């Protein structure tokens, strides 16, 4: 599904990513963690073909993420950590717009079911939504799609605990259906619960962690702390 090899990204003189490697196979749910400013979002933007890699390769479905972005995007769904919407449109309008651009038609049943599960009112204008409700717009639009890969960048920021539970259920359903998920998050318990494997990123460099490593360190949080203590 995803394959990143020796990825580097510079912004002018600043080196944002120095050496990122990642591989996600079909049906895997993979976590992506690291401190603020380590390069998580930059990596994801390279995967989305929004940023061009300085060196190295990144591919999704075996296609180059920069050159074949349009093709790739037809089969992926993305949820950013901070969703910016258009103040004069309603939540429902934006959800349908996002789904329509994928050109696969709207599965109204699935969409309405998600709206109900997330307890969301799609008839209000976007400027009246709170952070959590804006997040729901992106989540509902993403989960309504029949995508092969879901890229989620801190998708639960601003959600209340009940809604976070709904989110976890949704991801588990995706997993059952054999879809792949890349989940970037600071909520380590969420990552630990959902993910088969985890990538940790520090100063633009990734390291892979297996479930076994987590068990050895007793919890992901302990491992995270250890990793960055050692780094200092």
């Amino acid at each position, binding site marked *: 599904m995803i394959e990143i090899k020796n990825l580097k990204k510079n912004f002018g003189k600043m080196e944002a990513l120095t050496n990122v490697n990642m591989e996600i196979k079909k049906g895997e749910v993979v976590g992506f963690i690291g401190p603020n400013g380590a390069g998580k979002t930059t990596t994801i933007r390279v995967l989305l073909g929004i940023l061009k890699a300085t060196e190295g390769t990144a591919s999704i479905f075996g296609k180059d993420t920069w050159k*074949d972005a*349009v093709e790739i995007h037809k089969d*992926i769904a993305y949820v950013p950590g901070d969703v910016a919407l*258009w103040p004069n449109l309603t939540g429902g309008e934006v959800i349908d*717009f996002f789904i329509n651009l994928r050109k696969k038609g709207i599965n109204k049943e699935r969409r309405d079911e998600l709206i109900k599960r997330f307890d969301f009112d799609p008839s209000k204008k976007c400027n009246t939504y*709170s*952070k959590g409700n804006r997040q729901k717009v*992106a989540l509902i639009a993403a989960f309504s799609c029949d995508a092969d890969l879901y890229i989620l960048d801190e998708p639960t920021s601003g959600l209340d605990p009940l809604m976070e539970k709904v989110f976890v259920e949704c991801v588990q359903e995706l997993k059952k259906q054999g879809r792949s998920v890349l989940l970037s998050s600071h909520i380590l318990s969420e990552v630990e619960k959902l993910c088969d494997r985890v990538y940790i990123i520090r100063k633009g460099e990734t390291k892979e962690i297996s479930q076994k490593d987590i068990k050895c360190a007793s919890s992901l949080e302990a491992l995270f702390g250890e990793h960055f203590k050692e780094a200092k």
Partner: protein
Amino acid sequence: MRSLFYGTFDLMKFVLRKERISTAIWLGVLLFLTIFVAIAYGGLYSDAQSAAMIGMVEMWANPAVVAMLGPIFGEASPASLYASSMILTMVITVAIMNIFFVIRHTRAEEEKGQGEVIRSLPVGRLANLAAVLSFAGLMNLALSILIMFALWGFYGVAGAAMFGFSIGVSGFVFAGVAAIFANLSASRTGAIGMSIGAVLFFYMVRAMGDVSAEWLSFTSPIGLAAQTQPMAGNIAWPLFVLLGIGIICIAVAFYLNSIRDFGRGIFAEKTGRREGGFLMKSPEGLLFKLTRRSTLFWCAGLFMLGASYGVVMGETESFLEMIQTVMPNVTDVRIFIVMITMLASIMAVVPSLAILLKLVGDEKNGRYEQVFAGSVSRHRMLAAHIGYALIQSFVMLFVVMFGLWVTSYSVMDEPIAFGEMFSAFMVYLPASFVFIGLTALLIGLIPKRAAVIMYSYFGLTFTLMYFGPMADLPKEMTYITPFGFVPQIPIDTVNPWAIVSLLLVSAALIAGSFFLYRRRSLRFAA
């Protein structure tokens, strides 16, 4: 290559969905202006031999007027007079419309993060820019055709078409210019500032060309738009040159968009200071820091407004005849001063309104939430904004007066004394205060509607005071605005009661605003 533009049409429909109302308003207002002036001119300049017409043409012999409005092409006729006096105003207004439109949907969406969600969907990298520019093209085409049909009945099809398309095509050029700056600058404000700077630059280049070296006018898109000589020569080739320039700009914008990183500009952002300076110690300092740049721009603009009126006052011999053409009931030079002071004073109230309305603007978007979360009282914030607006209203009035006085002093044979000019302007200060007081009251009472109401009221005031005398409206009608009560120095004698009552009313309004603002809840964005 195809994939770069994938989804353009869908995004264009989305632009239409977002823009349908504001586009309709822009086009409607522009069309109204086109027709309104045509009707007003129809009454004033019936044929080429009328006295008003001859006076107007005489006024145009003044290089300052040519620099401001451009030359009259060919034989003066009611039609060519209309075209000459309207073309630059329309071209600049439409250029600004295009700049705001393009940047709102490109750099601004990228800055806010809306662009990121769009780019994660199956759309090409250049699709959004392509959609926005295609929409701009259609919008300008529609505008050209609408103007053509609106003026057809007045001035005949050829001139009307040339006038309409000169405006539309130059608007398209500035959509392209804005697209370039949207890629060069990483911020919305930067891109808008640079684009409007380009408009001013090309306006000045044209002014120099029109006054001294004609070839210079052909190097400026604004000059080229006027050089089609609508309703006189009706020369079409500049339109094709403009179209070519527009297409080149768009090609450059696409290239720049393709080589830069998302969210960044070609120009690197400067890093700022690491610590908050003196101004960041208080909410008053913050307010000053946030608005000082726009204050400076307003000062420069109003100074130039005053100065340009001042230059025109130099032509003392033909002076009276000239103003009689514009304002037929003028019999004394000083009435002209009255007219200028009134219009300039009304304009000078805008920055004060903007400052005061920032209080509700930054309430709505949530920025002031953090300020109010600090130990800052409601009264302190309101007082800061009102105080700053009051000071600003004096400064702006002074600047526009100074611009007028300095230039008129240097060109007039019998210059107007500073004291006389000063008092002619400062009598308007109490009326500005009433405007400020009313805005403050609305901020306390109905914050959501305050901006709309005040800007509409301002528009009404301007229209009534400017066109009222032209349309021979009864004087009593101006009493719905505070500016209607101001004694018109140096024609009228000073009526102290009018001034005192305006001051009392503004004081009462401000007092009321303090009472109301303390008692309502603040509505920050969630």
